[in-house]
């Protein structure tokens, strides 16, 4: 039985900028928890309590949150990958910590406990695969008689719709196939070439990747649908809580606010009066939302303040943003460029951390605002604004 899991948590996630400028990808917060916590909890639910976390980019944030793992019922050992040279290189850092067989998982994908159970039932070596609609984003797995014949990373043309979830059960064998600057699929391909057989196990369980900033909203929706609700803090008279609404400790929800679940609100927030929060919204800790504001299907980070009479749809507001009154961020279909890729998505505004917005700013659908930007009152913002932009 597998007793150890190695979780890759070193990556930055370039395409998720601005949200990953100041944090590793695994520390993206969704519904009040970083993605990594969902992975660790899913692993723990499968009875694996010994976890090696491979950290690198902004690793202190992982230390600060995960600690020694006590709070999550696991024991965490940290291994540092100083330079991000691919997943195989990352795994090689952990060689000393691994005695026999182990489970390997990406820390930046949303993985359910049942999904992991699909692979822990069979013996290593094995890879967990899943059918998806858009295989071009992933490593496509060619399978023959239940065994992997080849893994092709992000193929230019479709060779199948079964992709690798990046979840493997492996033995120490793998270490003899790791060469620097390689990704894991290549190491596996050379294992297969040497005659090793790797089982391809298909799963129907939850496995969601987050690649682009707007993926945060999809993940948020997926998690909120299952989040058990609990209410803490102070709920004033005349507050309507519909469906699954969670409110953290020390939070105040003031009168006549209308919260329609699924909604998750963190600790120490001050919300309302007369605020309307609609599905599927998650709000971090220590957030202030002033009266007459409506928020729908959005993710709001820690320490954010949103002024009165604002309207946010399908938006992601990173931590520490201060938004004055009458901010409008409506959703709409738009084409967004990330690096040199073009994507047509339905999304509102995406604000990096620590932005300051004056009164009555209007955000066009799909605007991405870099960290610490400042927008003067009454401005219309659109497109991609780099970090520390100043819109006069």
């Amino acid at each position, binding site marked *: 039985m597998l007793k150890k899991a190695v979780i890759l948590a070193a990556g930055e996630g370039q395409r998720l900028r601005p949200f990953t400028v100041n944090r590793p990808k695994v520390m993206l917060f969704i519904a009040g928890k970083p993605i990594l916590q969902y992975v660790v909890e899913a692993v723990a639910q499968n*009875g694996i*309590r*010994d976890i090696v976390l491979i950290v690198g980019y902004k690793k202190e944030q992982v230390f600060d949150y995960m600690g020694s793992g006590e709070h999550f019922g*696991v024991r965490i050992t940290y291994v540092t990958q100083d330079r991000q040279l691919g997943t195989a290189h990352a795994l090689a850092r952990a060689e000393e910590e691994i005695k026999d067989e182990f489970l390997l998982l990406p820390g930046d994908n949303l993985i359910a406990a049942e999904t992991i159970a699909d692979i822990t039932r069979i013996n290593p070596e094995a890879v967990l695969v899943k059918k998806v609609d858009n295989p071009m984003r992933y490593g496509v797995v060619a399978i023959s008689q239940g065994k992997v014949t080849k893994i092709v990373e992000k193929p230019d043309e479709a060779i199948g719709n079964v992709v690798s979830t990046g979840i493997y059960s492996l033995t120490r064998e793998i270490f003899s196939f790791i060469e620097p600057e390689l990704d894991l699929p290549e190491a596996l391909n050379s294992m297969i070439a040497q005659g090793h057989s790797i089982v391809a196990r298909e799963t129907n369980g939850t496995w969601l990747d987050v690649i682009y900033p707007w993926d945060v909203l999809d993940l948020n929706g997926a998690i909120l649908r299952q989040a*058990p609700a*609990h*209410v803490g*803090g*102070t709920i004033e008279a005349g507050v309507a809580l519909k469906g699954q609404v969670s409110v953290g*400790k020390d939070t105040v929800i003031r009168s006549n606010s209308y919260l329609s679940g699924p909604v998750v609100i963190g600790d120490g927030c001050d919300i309302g009066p007369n605020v309307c929060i609609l599905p599927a919204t998650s709000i971090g800790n220590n957030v202030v939302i002033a009266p007459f504001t409506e928020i729908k299907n959005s993710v709001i980070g820690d320490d954010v303040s949103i002024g009165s009479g604002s309207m946010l749809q399908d938006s992601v507001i990173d931590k520490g943003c201060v938004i004055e009154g009458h901010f409008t961020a409506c959703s709409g279909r738009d084409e967004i460029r990330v690096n040199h890729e073009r994507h047509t998505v339905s999304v509102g505004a995406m604000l990096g951390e620590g932005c300051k917005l004056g009164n009555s700013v209007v955000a066009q659908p799909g605007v991405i605002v870099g960290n610490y930007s400042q927008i003067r009152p009454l401005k219309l913002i659109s497109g991609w604004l780099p970090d520390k932009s100043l819109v006069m």
Partner: protein
Amino acid sequence: MKAVILAAGEGNRMRPLTRTRPKVMLPLANKPILEHLLVEVIAAGIKELIFVVGYHDEQVRDYFGGGEKWGVNIAYANQRKQLGTADAIRMSENLVDGHFMVMNGDVIVNRKDIRKLAAKRGNALGIIEVKDTTGLGMVELKKGKVVHIYEKEKNPPSTTANAGFYRLTPDIFQAISRTPVSPRGEYEITDSLGIMMDNGIDIAYHKISHWIDLSYPWDLLTANEWLLAATRLKNLGAIEENVVIKGAVSIGKNTTIRSGSYIVGPVMIGEGCDIGPNCYIRPFTAIADGCRIGGAVEVKNCIIMRNSKLPHHNYIGDSIVGEGCNLGAGTKVANLRLDKKEVWANGVNTGKRKLGAIIGDGVETGINVCINVGTVIGNGTLIGPGAVASGVILPGSQVF
């Protein structure tokens, strides 16, 4: 022969009721779970007990002391960290001599089974046939011996469960010292038994007829019902005129039942309570010491812990009320969904069609508060006048 009783656990599925007490101190029929077990153990002829305590050990120590009240001798061993059953038993190593019994303090087994298991030779364990195997360790038997113990597996090969109830020889301590940490980071006694079996030491078994295993708060209501069925008519209190008492009702001393109260047993009322006038207490209700049940109050199938007040115009059914609660006039608890489906509480299907609320200690409600089916209310929460409470409410919250 001595018995080691494991009473160190918190029982986190029992939250919020276990915030201030260990699981073994939860009351059933006005007595802690552990006392019900103790009574059976004593009746089976065991007078020397070792309680392994940990989480909120002061509650166990204060209540049971040295065992004088029960005419037995109770020694304590402290398990400081929850490191599993084998670790807990190791804590008692210096206190036992020869073979001894081990049982979980949160499972009630009856005296006959204890006596029969104790009469076995060598090492033996109690087993029980179950329908639902989730969360239980299962055993495989062959020729009167246990040949394998499975820890909580998804698809176990049998429906015979390990009842967590053992007769052990001192060999166990040697096996415990060689027991490795399990994947969940604890030392499991089942692993120690596995080591003994590997060394050729036989493990016998005894099939027990009945047990009360408690996982969730609502399991307490089922067990409470079962134990109250044995209530005998007894009155040590003062009963005013025009009180109607039907069936087995036990009333403690210094308790007053005022006029017009209508009580249908089995009901157990503790000491120093003030009941009525004009209240209606229905079957399977256990009211602990120092409670107040006032006028026009209806209570049914409930566990009401010490010093709680349901003073005016309350309805509460199929619910648990913690210590020191005060429900405002007109506060009512719903116990049946409008669609008559099974009630969910804290994200779990309780399997019960009728379930009210699980209310922690020191909860106060204003007048005319409505508490919905399956609501779980944390300790020290305040609910304002006219508010509707539902779902899971964290400790120390305020709902208006």
